[in-house]
């Protein structure tokens, strides 16, 4: 009788424990999904802002056709890319690069810098850029939490049983871009 009762309690505790682990894993996975959709929203917003920017800048920066075309092309590629997190990250990072050089070039055009429309767009794009990196920061933290749960004992056992997959980090840049830029005089 006593033995049976102890056994019953043990089973209930074990089931509750497995349930807690499982729910924790599902929670982590949903957090990853949710934070990815956050990045998605901001990337979309950036895609929408760029045509406006190019339109505004065109009149002032006639000589910088190459820079503008690079931005337009990078945007097009970023919009079209589908598939893995890695591919998208690559295309979006390329777009960030071209935008950065566009704003750097814009410094040489005082008229453009006095244009209210341009200033407003610059603030919007800077902010969107920030939002992307903060969303990425949050996404990477969420992925880290999920991956830790999947790899660490004892939750790794439950994760293996229910086939939880590790997620990939949103990498910042390709390895060669992360090196310190060379300054030549």
């Amino acid at each position: 009788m006593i033995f049976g009762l102890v056994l019953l309690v043990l089973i209930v505790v074990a089931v509750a424990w497995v349930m807690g682990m499982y729910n924790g894993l599902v929670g982590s996975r949903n957090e990853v999904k949710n934070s990815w959709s956050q990045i998605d929203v901001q990337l979309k917003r950036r895609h929408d802002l760029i045509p406006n920017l190019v339109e505004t800048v065109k009149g002032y920066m006639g000589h910088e056709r190459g820079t503008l075309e690079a931005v337009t092309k990078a945007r097009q590629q970023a919009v079209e890319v589908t598939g893995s997190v890695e591919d998208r990250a690559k295309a979006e990072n390329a777009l960030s690069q071209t935008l950065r050089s566009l704003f750097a070039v814009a410094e040489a055009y005082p008229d453009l810098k006095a244009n209210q429309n341009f200033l407003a767009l610059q603030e919007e794009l800077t902010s969107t850029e920030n939002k992307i990196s903060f969303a990425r920061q949050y996404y990477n933290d969420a992925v880290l939490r999920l991956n830790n749960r999947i790899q660490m004992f004892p939750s790794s056992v439950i994760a293996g049983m229910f086939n939880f997959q590790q997620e990939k980090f949103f990498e910042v840049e390709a390895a060669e871009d992360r090196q310190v830029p060379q300054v030549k005089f």
Partner: protein
Amino acid sequence: MWELIRANQRRAATLVVAMAALLFLLGYVLGDALAPGGGVTGLLVAFLLWVVLSLVSYFQGDSIFLALAGARKITKADHPQLINVVEEMTIAAGLPKVPDVYVMDEAAPNAFATGRDPQHAVVAVTAGLLETLERSELQGVIAHELGHVKNRDVLYMMMVGIMLGAIVLLADLGSRVFFFGGGRRRTSSRSDGQGQLLIVIVAVALMILAPIVAQLIYLALSRRREYLADASSALFTRYPEGLASALEKISRASTPLATATRATAPMYIVNPLGVSARGLADITSTHPPTSERIRILRSMAGAGLARYDDAFRTVTGKKGGVVPRSALTAPEQAAATAPAASPAMPAVPVAAAVPAATLAQAQAAAAAPVSAAAGRLERVRQTTDMLWRLNQFIFIPCACGTTLKVPPAYAGQEIACPQCGARHTVQPGAA
């Protein structure tokens, strides 16, 4: 992060229970001292006082507070940069909803957050803050405020504050009854003998001590929350220097905040009433010394909670840290906050956030040193424009390049541009 919130809630519960015990003890002893056997009545009075205060502040607290501070809600059109920064930090903090943003028409730079939970959160800043701070500094301040929201500090301080209020009120009430209306009861109590006398002595002692003890608990808590919010700010922005230099600028501006009172002071990022000399100020202040907060932020060797805890211990020389242990020992936290040292995570979010966050500053710095002054001028102009708009001033762009800003009382009249003399009719409601 979640560990931190859970640790907070546990600690909050313990403290609220402790304060409640103090309150009810005071109520019981007071009741019994005033009329033998009246302990239960005293208990009831204490309980009623607490319920009424709680209900009012739970549902009305933030709007009363905002009204007291003279804050007004703004939209994206009024100040795009501020709204953008709040949105950015909302994402970084992983909050479910972008808080409402309020502005106070005050020259002293300061900010506060309120609202009982993340769904009802409000962030308010003064016009002086917007004029003084650069973008990255503003980010640090907003992140600090959202740290309060994320850690549920507002609700927590509110609950403890209500207890404190109830204890002070009750002690005050008790002393009035004792000294002005208790003559008849006192004679009857003397005839009851030793036991009753003891009760009266305990009641008087409690009446004097309870408010002081409650106040000290409250203040110690308030200071701890400030450190925690600083730690959260560093975690969200991954750039402690932003908040550090913001705190420096805020503390350098010595103008006291006109609308702040002792009751509302704990809510601000830096004590708005100014600090008295150090020493006693340490335990009687709602905020830790700002210089110490800056030193901790500057000596952080990373941007995570664990790094903040290390820096806190080095700077203050205290053994115990400020971040709850369970938040530090959680493996994900330790790894997440030191990504550069962890080979398992090549993504390095620190490197990602910082260049983007300072992109605008970097560009400004590249242009010329003159642009720093120009940037400040631009900020001042944006802020004053926003205040004009909030006061329903009417903006009329003139063909000569100037913008006329006309008080709403002039709607419907015709005015001349002071630059070129062109005539304009003031359209009511024109932005």
